């Protein structure tokens, strides 16, 4: 049952998806590589998820669900990834008075957790090759997005176009 296993994977991802899209990418990769796709296809998937409208975890869920089990798979995976967050927020709204959480401490703890996730994500995504091309693309993208205000989407689309051009010249 592909639909069930995809849904379960994304339900789990939804539970720990703290701290913005990029932090959770490492966990998503661990869930679906090499079970459902190889590392290179995963990077392309993330590039697509980031350069289409909507949150990255949501888009990744829709795409993986679609590839594994068609429309129903996409629907199930998308629903699964938001299920726990929605339950968590609904119960917090209902029971806020009874939860004695110290906000500033919780914020700092979550910040540490999500930064550790980003570090893990970076480690998982680093090119496992000595070929120069992936490293040059990644370093250039880092330089551009870290030190200018350019939207990452343009970097993704530009890199895709550039690579097509390189291919055409060969």
């Amino acid at each position, binding site marked *: 049952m592909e639909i069930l296993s995809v849904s379960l994977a994304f339900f789990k991802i939804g539970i720990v998806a*703290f*701290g*913005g899209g*990029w932090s959770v990418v490492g966990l998503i990769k661990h869930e679906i590589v090499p079970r459902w796709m190889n590392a290179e296809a*995963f*990077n*392309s998937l*993330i*590039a*697509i998820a*980031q350069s*289409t*409208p*909507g*949150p*990255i975890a*949501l*888009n990744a869920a*829709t*795409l993986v669900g679609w590839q594994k089990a068609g429309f129903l798979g*996409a629907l199930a995976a*998308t629903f699964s990834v*938001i299920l726990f*967050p929605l339950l*968590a*927020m*609904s119960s917090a709204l209902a029971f806020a008075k009874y939860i004695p959480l*110290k906000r500033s*401490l919780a914020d700092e*703890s979550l910040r540490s*957790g*999500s930064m*550790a*996730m*980003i*570090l893990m994500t*970076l*480690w*998982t*995504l680093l*090119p496992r090759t000595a070929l120069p*091309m992936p490293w040059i*693309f*990644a*370093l*250039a*993208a*880092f*330089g551009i997005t870290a030190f200018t205000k350019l*939207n*990452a*989407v343009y*970097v*993704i689309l530009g*890199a*895709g*176009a550039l*690579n097509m051009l*390189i*291919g055409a010249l060969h």
Partner: protein
Amino acid sequence: MRMPARAEDITKTEPTPWHIFLVLAQINTLTLGGGYVIVPAIGNAFEKQGWIEEEEFYRIFSRAQVFPGPIALSTAFLASYRIAGVPGAIAAVLGTVLPPFFALILVGGFISLYGNTELFKRFLGGAGAVVPGLVASMLWKTTKNRKWSVRAVIEVVGLAILLVVFPSAAFFLLLGGIAVFYIGRLVWKS
């Protein structure tokens, strides 16, 4: 609570669930670049509609970060609940989820048609190659913007090493790690 009347009042709509859905669906169709681009766009739109004050919106945004899941979803959910109750929150979920869902179905269909052409493979290869750089830049920005303490460095580096070494336990490491950080900060204030 309505904002004071302004000239652009004519374009304003009542904060009904349907209108909340429309505003969010429009933003989520047109905004590329993830949560930290979408959230300000939502704040802007809600404030212009006179549904919520900017300050209140960003107070809700900071509360939304405590929850897992896409930050665009949790902020829209909590802000719309504040504006229009449970129907508002439901409208927020649909307005956040449906547009990207159908966009991705289209993209998925496109990929299954053209995914095997050499040209498209080259495009995906180039687009995928920049992803590690984008993550590094996100790490750079969050590192720069945080007030660091010895404790925070130990937490982040320690948990990251555990996650890299035991990726199959990542789920429990994260939940356990965040709980340990919280309890640690509670009982031992540095």
